């Protein structure tokens, strides 16, 4: 209990501060922040449909948040969940439409294809970091743009739907759809899958020796090497799994909501996954909670805009502030981050 309170202190504080500054911004526009936030909550949680929509938005975030968490735990900063999500969406769509497998296998095979496509896309920067020492931050960011173009190529070319009017793929067969779990809403079983994967990632990180190695590499690379752990292999493994999880985000978005591949399908879920992971304290349980929070912001923003006349982009500012404060809190927890240079100097001269 105490542990939970300690773990959630800074994230909650960060959210509070972000909402407070958001309120000031709303005030500056001459609107009532209490009213605005009220409508935001109402739009996100006011009725069954709203709650369902919030969870629909939270579902891909759970996957991308887990993706960023897993890589981060290995000391790899994966900024490429957006691109891995797109590749996963592409892989899942392709498998669902073109692979000829028995009907009951279409869904699992599509998910697997999405996982693999995202995973291999993530393994590229993982491999480059492991074998060539190239910075994964830059490579994952750049591969996002490549992924956008790859999807664009497929939906305007090889996978364009038969009549060929729109840049989008054909609809995936119904057998590949994720079931609706709440009648009259868009909420689908991808949410359950997300929760299952949160449990799997938790088990992997904290109850397997592979997860142990990943965490050792992530907390101290030199100690891992000294402990006989193959550090490069862990980088590749972490990025493969991380990319795979992001790929699943894209897969469930396709198989649960959109049912076809088109441009712009990632809609920032990959980038928000970074925020979700950080706000969630890089822990699967935290990721789930943070995903729902971001789902609330995404869903409620429009209601707020309609009702009070505040641009929905205020929500974007709040999201950015949350990240800002979470990162600031990280330096509070470990003040040495603020004076890295001095500390290093002090350490090797002390003896």
């Amino acid at each position: 209990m105490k542990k939970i309170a300690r773990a959630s202190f800074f994230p909650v504080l960060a959210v509070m501060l972000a909402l407070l500054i958001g309120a000031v911004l709303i005030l500056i526009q001459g609107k009532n922040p209490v009213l605005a936030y009220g409508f935001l909550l109402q739009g996100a949680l006011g009725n069954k449909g709203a709650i369902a929509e919030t969870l629909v938005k939270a579902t891909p975030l759970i996957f991308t948040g887990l993706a960023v968490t897993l890589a981060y735990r290995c000391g790899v900063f994966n900024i490429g969940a957006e691109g891995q999500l797109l590749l996963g969406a592409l892989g899942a769509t392709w498998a669902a439409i073109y692979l000829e497998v028995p009907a009951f296998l279409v869904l699992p095979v599509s998910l697997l294809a999405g996982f693999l496509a995202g995973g291999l896309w993530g393994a590229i920067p993982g491999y480059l970091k492991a074998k060539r020492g190239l910075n994964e931050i830059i490579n994952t960011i750049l591969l996002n743009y490549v992924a956008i173009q790859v999807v664009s190529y497929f939906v305007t070319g090889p996978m364009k739907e038969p009549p060929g009017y729109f840049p989008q793929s054909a609809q995936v067969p119904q057998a590949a759809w994720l079931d609706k779990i709440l009648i009259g809403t868009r909420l689908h079983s991808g949410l359950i899958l997300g929760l299952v994967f949160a449990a799997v990632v938790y088990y992997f990180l904290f109850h397997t020796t592979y997860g142990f190695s990943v965490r050792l590499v992530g907390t101290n690379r030199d100690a891992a090497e000294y402990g006989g752990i193959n550090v490069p292999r862990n980088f590749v493994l972490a990025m493969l799994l991380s990319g795979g999880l992001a790929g699943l985000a894209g897969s469930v978005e396709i198989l649960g909501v959109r049912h076809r591949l088109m441009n712009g399908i990632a809609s920032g879920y990959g980038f928000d996954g970074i925020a979700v992971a950080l706000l969630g304290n890089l822990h699967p349980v935290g990721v789930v909670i943070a995903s729902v929070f971001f789902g609330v912001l995404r869903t409620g923003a429009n209601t707020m805009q309609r009702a009070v006349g505040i641009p929905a982009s205020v929500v974007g500012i709040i999201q950015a502030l949350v990240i800002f404060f979470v990162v600031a809190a990280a330096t509070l927890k470990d003040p040495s981050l603020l004076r890295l240079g001095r500390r290093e100097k002090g350490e090797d001269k002390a003896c």
Partner: protein
Amino acid sequence: MVTSLLVMKGIVKRFPGLLANDNIDFEVAPGEVHALLGENGAGKSTLMNILSGLYVPDAGEILLRGKRVTITSPKEAIELGIGMVHQHFMLIPAMTAAENIILGLRSPKEPWLGLAEAETRIRALSERYGLSVNPRTKVSELSVGEQQRVELLKALYRDADLLILDEPTAVLTPEEAESLFAIIHRLAGEGATVIFISHKLKEVMRISDRVTILRHGRIIGTVVTAEATSAQLATMMVGREVLFEAFPKSGGGSTVMAVKNVTYVTAEGKKALEGVSFDLRESEVVGIAGVDGNGQSQLARIVTGLLPPASGRIELLGQDMTGKTADCFIRAGVAHIPEDRNKMGLSGDMSIAENLVFKSIDQPPFSSLKGFRLHHAQVREHALKLAGEYDIRSAGVNTFCRNLSGGNRQKVILARELSQTPVVLVAVHPTRGLDVGATDFIHRQIIDARDSGCAVLLISSDLDEVLRLSDRILCIYEGKIMAELSGKEPDLERIGLLMAGKGAEE
């Protein structure tokens, strides 16, 4: 009578668990080359860091040109004409020599950089002191010796007339060192004063006018170099205070590990190890005595599989281990107390329990299903047992290691390494920075391991430690084993000379 340029009086500097400078009086005359001689950890660098504003002393005063000064930052030191050239250069590789030299200074013709004027001045300084460097060359394209000259120019450009060189030859090839000595003579000839930090007797004898010897944070004495002998300086440097009772020595059994003709060349092309050969025997401690930076780091990494040697062979129980991974060495029973416990030996953001098993996590009882499933209960039980045996004091075994004191951190490492009943234990600076109690405890554990059959390679720059524990002593200097001595009543003066690179032939 010449008045002193610099007087440091009663300087005291404490670090947690360490008295680095204990009431130091130090005086430098203008225009002299003054060497500061002492082993690692003697307090030389601390004293000079105080002078250059990196540390603030806990007590004492500094008089410069007869005036009392307080130096609280490197900037103030530079304004007073004190320039320090650190062992690790502080240059930006992507910028040219001239750009590095003017970095941080106000240009006289802002907002323009005034690079041309700077280059003219740099060329003039180069000429005057014989520091040939092309100001337009990028630092990344300069040799190590040239980079050092850029550092010197940086200080001179800021009108420093008291130059502190912190072990300047450590990174240089012999040829580069020669030209550095020429430069130092020239600097002194032009009226600059040089403080030269070193632990190499040969250099000190060669270059300095006077020598001040430090040991364990205290001044042992200041002598005029011309009136002293190497042997005298060596004894002053090494000295010896008996703090602990001695252990009975052991004769050793059959050979466990054989190191054959091992050579290692660093990325900069410096020979870190040259033709190193020795045996480690059962129930025996072999101590490597030497001043830091003479190849010990590389040697420790090579015999634990963390670094492949450039040439030579490592045999363990008759089997060739050369080029095998660190994992293979661990499996074969080679334990390692690493040089830098925080950087390498532990993961500060993991718990004591996790740190105690990270080398054996894939084995029962800590995991099952071929090392897939982790068993927290067993890991915890193991930790509780070891915490008791090794007296690891903490708020509990789930405490993160970064919250432990240095002594307790080292005990975690020791417990992990010895609980696997190793065949070979490589212990590098096992008690560096620890208090007397922890030091004694760790020494006893090492001797216990020896007595139960373990072959121990002890690498330490603390000579007291080497003498106390070793059954045989090898002296290392510039990557070469200079001599082997028996651990029973070794000749201290000879070890001092060998460590400082003298007297191998005698």
